[in-house]
């Protein structure tokens, strides 16, 4: 229990640090650390799946994205600092509002009604029919597959917007690369290991914590690392491959989901007897697509203004 209070305190303290500091660098690094603390919190909430996702995304993507943006927005840091605490009236009102929201939320939490259905029990009863042994994978790809489908579609739309912005401009993406020989040597075995861990997470998701989303995050991190270190990515500049890769997850999901529909069943009900195989195929495609989608969002960032940051060629 003391562990939980300490962890919760550290989480709130870090969050407050992210928001209250005047230094943008400090804020960003604290935000990265907040992600790691969140992973530990998910462990204490007994949600190892979420801990895995948060660790992969927090350590692999969020930090990179924000540091990347920070390097880009760097020059007017001084101006940004000055903008704060200008209007005491607004600040006071905001504090009151936040206090009120906290109070209301806590009252609502303490008074929350007992739910009428016992979801864990229902999930347990249906687990056998889903074809996989891990309840979260079952919820994601069997019981609530519709939600997952639409969620992938939402991410696809976000990527389309990002890429549209990217391709509507003449400028090239930032090409700054780290050419440290130590890094290059390490990548030789680090990258295959990342690929292996992604596949492992995907496979293990059928019977315990892991699955497409966590694997995709690791995969995306791998691609980002390749990009940053100047390791060529196969098929990177081929736009047709890019389009196919981005939609293959969603496409296979829809295709396999419609098989039962065509034969008179329900949409997104996996074919009888092929549940596990279908889920694995869809998960594999989803992993690949989601990894590519997340990586594309990283790639969609425009080039920094000053020419000294860019470095042509390479990849």
């Amino acid at each position: 229990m003391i562990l939980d209070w300490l962890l919760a305190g550290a989480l709130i303290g870090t969050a407050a640090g992210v928001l209250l500091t005047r230094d943008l660098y400090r804020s960003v690094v604290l935000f990265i650390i907040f992600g790691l603390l969140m992973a530990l919190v998910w462990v204490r909430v007994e949600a190892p799946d979420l801990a895995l996702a948060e660790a992969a995304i927090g350590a692999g993507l969020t930090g990179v994205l924000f540091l990347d943006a920070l390097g880009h927005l760097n020059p007017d840091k001084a101006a940004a600092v000055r903008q704060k605490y200008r209007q005491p009236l607004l600040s006071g009102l905001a504090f009151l509002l936040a206090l009120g929201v906290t109070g209301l939320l806590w009252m609502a939490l303490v008074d929350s009604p007992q739910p009428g259905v016992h979801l864990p029990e229902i999930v347990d009863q249906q687990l056998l029919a889903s074809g996989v042994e891990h309840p979260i994978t079952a919820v994601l790809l069997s019981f609530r597959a519709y939600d997952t489908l639409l969620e992938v579609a939402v991410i696809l739309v976000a990527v389309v917007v990002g890429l549209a912005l990217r391709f509507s401009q003449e400028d090239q993406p930032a090409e700054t690369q780290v050419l440290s020989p130590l890094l290059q040597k390490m990548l030789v075995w680090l990258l295959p290991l990342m690929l292996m861990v992604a596949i492992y997470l995907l496979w293990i998701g059928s019977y315990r914590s892991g699955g497409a989303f966590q694997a995709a995050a690791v995969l995306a991190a791998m691609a980002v690392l390749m990009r940053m270190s100047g390791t060529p990515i196969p098929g990177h500049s081929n736009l047709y491959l890019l389009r196919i890769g981005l939609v293959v997850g969603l496409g296979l999901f829809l295709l396999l989901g419609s098989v039962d529909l065509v034969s008179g069943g329900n949409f997104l009900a996996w074919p009888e007897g092929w549940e596990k195989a279908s889920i694995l195929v869809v998960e594999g495609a989803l992993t690949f697509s989601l990894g590519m989608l997340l990586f594309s969002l990283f790639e969609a960032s425009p080039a920094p203004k000053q020419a000294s940051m860019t470095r042509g060629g390479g990849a």
Partner: protein
Amino acid sequence: MTWALWVSTLLLLLALVLGVWRVWLGPTLADRMLAAQLFGTTGVALLLLLAELLEQPALRDVALVIALLAVMATVAFVARAQPAGQSISKKENEDAD
């Protein structure tokens, strides 16, 4: 045995909380990135201990992922967020040429 694990977990969490102080102090982004790196290592140790304590083998996977991706933030820092606005690796390369 169990009490030793719990005490160690608390010690590690304490180390984690103290480490935030270095992030706050800075003074340079490099110092902050080092502290973040330390967070990763401590988090890995914490997760391994918790995996044993809570008997959740999945936590070892979380530790594996964190250890695997620990280099990402540092590489991003060197590649993109250099305060000087110039990649050190580039300079080093020119020296070598």
